[in-house]
């Protein structure tokens, strides 16, 4: 079974290579090879995942490693290309390959009219390879390689419609902002190697206790910097909303379900390092929960359907980091999995909506679509209920677990903010559903007449994603804190939790846990009810009119929060001022300095020499006496200086 593991990333990279070379000539058949490659990778992954989770040989409890080749043999610095598979890898493999496969299939329909069809599938395959390399690698530097490669794919896919200036700008922004975090990650890797002489993740975790606590904190902070970039947390969150310029399947796969989880995965994988640096864990919590509430507040007023989902993704990722920071590792991975499925579903659903209304993304020109596109509507509604945290759907279990563990591990403030965010999430999700699917259509009449449900190749992936959105929480996360997933991941996080002195205690349905559960559900219901009152509802047996005038009155009564939310708290403007304007000034000044001062000095010396030459020409008199005098003076000076120097 272990020998099959290298095939998982090898298949998509082969698909990429073949498609890149001959895809242009294949026309509409260009998708065949990439899609088959990903389906095969999924099948192998599932077999491997089953073997890992049932502790078959050679995986056992600790997982197993397969080495391929020595990549960098630079004396004491050597890095192997090797894959390590354990339960955490397995959890990520499930998410990445399943959603990856469904997105590939969905794209056959979604991208069918695009002239860059083959290019799209080539990029998608390259992304699958990079992402799988990221979760399989057993070495920090190889993770970093994959880290940058997924960034490259993200760049290529955001800028897929490169003719559109906004897409080109968004792609560049994503790559550069990610690089800011990557600087931290790279420095972290350097620090680890200089201290421990190895970059093998397992060895580093084993020996991290040898190091001085300040150094460990620094390592943890630097790794976290990388995670903040890739998972778009404050203050590097600005690239993700713009990334919605990419085709919608990309938003679903890369910018919701897989790549943006890389930061969460990395921090979970190195949980033991963070556990040695409790003060850094507080930073993780703070950044996570702050991003969660910041993004949720922006999602309130956005009108672009994909941007609402993008801010929602930021917010949910914030939850995951908060979970990691309070030591609820399993809950974080749990939420990563459930979020991957329901957010992937919501994005693909939004793609189906956008397709149906002819590439319109503004919800102000939608409405009433439930009747016309029932499958999209039903599946998206499931996604919305799941993310809002209504039992027994997937999101409820994972989110409740994060909130409950924050509370029980002593982070009351995290629990309180998290609870508020849960209510906000439920609100903006049902605002989205209401604006899109209920009420009357607000766009042009001729578009309404042509609104149609997407083809089966797109709706079947939606249905297949709706199933885990409904049941995965119940399947792997029930009973709370004692589900299947907890059994799988417990050995991985055991050490970290022990370091943090986190006892595993009995789940008390009629005690603290039950009370927290009721609070979670209650706030979600409150959020939904407010949304339904404002934006209408058309559930069977439950009907309500939208009240746009009430929304307007509310916005007018809260002018500052409204404007702040609408303008995304002015982060883009601030960064534009700091880095584009002021940074540009500095660059322009340095170039001036280069031309005028540095080069000016060089040219000045040159001019001086020619002038001096012109002056010295007069010395060349042609009279031997003058030369003899010069030679004599020179000799005296030389002899004199020799005596002075030698005499010292």
């Amino acid at each position, binding site marked *: 079974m272990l020998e099959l593991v290298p095939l998982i990333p090898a298949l998509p990279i082969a698909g990429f290579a073949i498609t890149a070379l001959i895809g242009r000539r294949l026309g509409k058949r260009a998708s065949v090879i990439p899609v088959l490659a990903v389906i095969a990778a999924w099948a192998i992954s599932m077999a491997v995942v089953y073997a890992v989770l049932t502790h078959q040989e050679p995986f056992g409890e600790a997982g197993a490693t397969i080495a391929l080749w020595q990549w*960098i043999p*630079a004396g004491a610095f050597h890095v192997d290309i090797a894959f390590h598979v354990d339960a955490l890898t397995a959890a990520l493999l499930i998410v990445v390959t399943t959603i990856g496969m469904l997105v590939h299939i969905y794209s056959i329909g979604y991208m069918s009219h695009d002239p860059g069809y083959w290019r799209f599938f080539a990029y998608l395959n390259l992304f699958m390879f990079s992402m799988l390399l990221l979760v399989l690698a057993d070495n920090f530097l190889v993770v970093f390689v994959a880290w940058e490669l997924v960034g490259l794919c993200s760049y290529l896919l955001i800028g897929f419609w490169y003719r559109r*200036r906004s897409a080109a700008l968004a792609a560049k922004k994503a790559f550069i902002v990610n690089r800011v975090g990557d*600087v931290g990650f790279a*420095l972290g890797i*350097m620090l680890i*190697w200089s201290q421990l002489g190895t970059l093998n993740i397992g060895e580093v975790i084993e020996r991290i206790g040898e190091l001085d606590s300040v150094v460990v904190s620094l390592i943890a902070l630097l790794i976290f910097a990388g995670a903040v970039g890739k998972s778009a947390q404050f203050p590097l969150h600005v690239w993700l909303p713009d990334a919605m310029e990419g085709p919608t399947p990309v938003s679903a796969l890369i910018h919701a379900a897989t790549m943006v989880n890389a930061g969460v995965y990395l921090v979970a994988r190195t949980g033991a390092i963070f556990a040695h640096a409790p003060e850094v864990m507080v930073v993780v919590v703070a950044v996570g929960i702050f991003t969660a509430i910041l993004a949720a507040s922006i999602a309130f007023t956005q009108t672009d359907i994909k941007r609402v989902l993008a801010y929602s993704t930021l917010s949910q990722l914030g939850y995951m980091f908060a979970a990691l920071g309070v030591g609820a590792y399993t809950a974080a991975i749990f939420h990563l999995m459930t979020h991957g499925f329901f957010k992937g579903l919501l994005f693909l659903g939004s793609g189906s909506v956008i397709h149906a209304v002819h590439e319109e993304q503004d919800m102000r020109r939608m409405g009433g679509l439930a009747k016309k596109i029932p499958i999209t509507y039903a599946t998206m509604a499931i996604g919305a209920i799941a993310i809002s945290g209504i039992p027994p759907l997937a999101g409820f279990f994972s989110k409740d677990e994060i909130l409950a563990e924050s509370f029980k591990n002593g982070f009351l403030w995290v629990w309180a903010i998290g609870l508020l965010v849960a209510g906000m999430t439920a609100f903006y999700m049902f605002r989205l559903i209401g604006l899109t699917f209920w009420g009357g259509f607000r766009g042009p009449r001729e578009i309404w007449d042509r609104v149609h449900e997407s083809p089966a190749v797109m709706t079947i992936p939606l249905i297949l994603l709706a199933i885990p959105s409904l049941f995965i929480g119940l399947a792997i996360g029930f009973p709370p804190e004692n589900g299947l997933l907890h059994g799988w991941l417990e050995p991985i996080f055991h050490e970290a939790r022990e370091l943090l002195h986190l006892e595993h205690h009995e789940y008390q349905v009629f005690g603290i846990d039950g009370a927290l559960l009721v609070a979670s559900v209650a706030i979600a219901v409150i959020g939904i009810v407010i949304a339904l009152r404002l934006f209408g509802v058309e559930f069977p047996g439950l009907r309500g009119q939208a009240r746009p005038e009430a929304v307007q009155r509310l916005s007018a009564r809260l002018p500052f929060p409204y404007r702040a939310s609408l303008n995304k708290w002015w982060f883009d403007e601030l960064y534009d001022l700091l880095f584009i304007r002021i940074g540009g000034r500095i660059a322009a000044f340095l170039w001036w300095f280069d031309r005028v001062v540095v080069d000016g000095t060089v040219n000045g010396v*040159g001019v001086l020499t020619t002038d001096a030459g012109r002056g010295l020409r007069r010395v060349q008199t042609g009279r031997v006496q003058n030369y003899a005098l010069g030679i004599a003076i020179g000799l005296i000076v030389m002899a004199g200086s020799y005596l002075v120097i030698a005499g010292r």
Partner: protein
Amino acid sequence: MPILTLITFVPLAGAILIAFLPRGSVGLVRAVALGTALVTFVLSLFLLVGFLPGRPGFQFLEEVDWIPAFGIQYKLGVDGLSVALVVLTTTLTWISILASFGPIKDRVKEYMISFLILEVGMIGVFVALDLFLFYIFFEVVLVPMYLIIGIWGGANRIYATIKFVIYTLVGSLLMLVGILATAFAFQAATGSWNGAFDYEQLRGFGFDGTLQLFAFGAFFLAFAIKVPMFPFHTWLPDAHVEAPTAGSVILAGILLKLGGYGFIRFAVPLFADAAQTWAPLIIVLSLIAIIYGAIVALVQPDLKKLVAYSSVSHMGFVTLGVFAFQEQALQGAILQMINHGLITGALFLLVGVIYERTHDRTIAKYGGLSERTPVYAVAFGFFIFASAGLPGLSGFVGEFLTLVGTFAVNPWAAVVATFVMIAAAAYLLWMFQRVFFGEVSEFLKGIGHHLEDLRPVETLTLVPLGALVVVFGLVPGLLLTLVQGTVTAMIGDATAGNAINLAFWR
């Protein structure tokens, strides 16, 4: 068989042959030039195969007395670093000659002769083990490059080429003084001229501290101008902008490496104490070059100037890695030299491709180019990301090894240098976006149908470079084992040195 002499002087034979060809038969001149370059390339591959990386010291030694009165010899020999740079030279030379077929239509004969003589000089520099001989080759390189820029260059070529020559000449003349000073000191100490210019004799001779300080200073200036290090870099953008495409390729690919090679081969091993003394200053200058070059590249309006300033930034890694005196850092620096030759060479070729079609390199005039020339866009994008240090391609390994090695001895220097990751992505991707993305610009619409995608010949010049960039990215061990001997030797020499107390200045 004296293979080193053969490799060095086959191009000269080709140049002489071309001199006797009739001026009119341009095709024949081109064929002979390319043939000569290819023969030299194949010979250098024999050298590569025959070289045994495991053995210490120099291989394929050739020793003949030249000026016995002063102990000057014709002495050649190679170690792993020289072999790598010789093969880089022969590779880039045939690629450059091939790339010149289209653009160079005027005085083809003289151009090819200059190019082949240039190759003699470059190879000679890398194989000479006698300091005087090294100096001769070092200067030989200047003359053909002076002509290539001055005759086949752009509008402002005379200013650029004179600046290039005088600047470099100032450095190399100082180096000559340094060479003579060490020879005199050697003669004074041993009482004999025997070996006074012999690298293997002088290495580890242990010169007097004061002499070291000044001789190192002279060598340093010569090589720092070549690299070029901040603040001696301003000749580079001018020279690049005016040089013809192939001239830029060789300038960036090989000539800048003479500086890095000089540091590793001569300046550090001969004057280890002085190198230790000056190292902090040189590291600071390297850091300035890395960051400053990248920031200035950001605002360049001209494609070639942008690549030129990116060279300043990239070569900063070379000097940083050398003067960290740490194994991984030096390995990274050497890799960076090779990779910069491949990647920046390719970028200049690519700029040349579009310049030949549009006669304009102003970034602002472009836009939406990938619409018109998709294959060219892919090739450009590939080398852009290679230049930005994308892992999996060769640039990353060199930069990362330099950084991790530097970090181990001087964390703050590594921290500063690492930030270039952001700036590099910024200037490269911004340029790429402005040239290739968006709507097709008015300027390009005006060019219209003349805008042809990559031609087969152009593809042929780029594919070998791209392939090497991938291979060295995935299997950097190929290069690392080759240069291991050089690395161990230089680190040994450098760490044996003690920083000289500079108290006497006061």
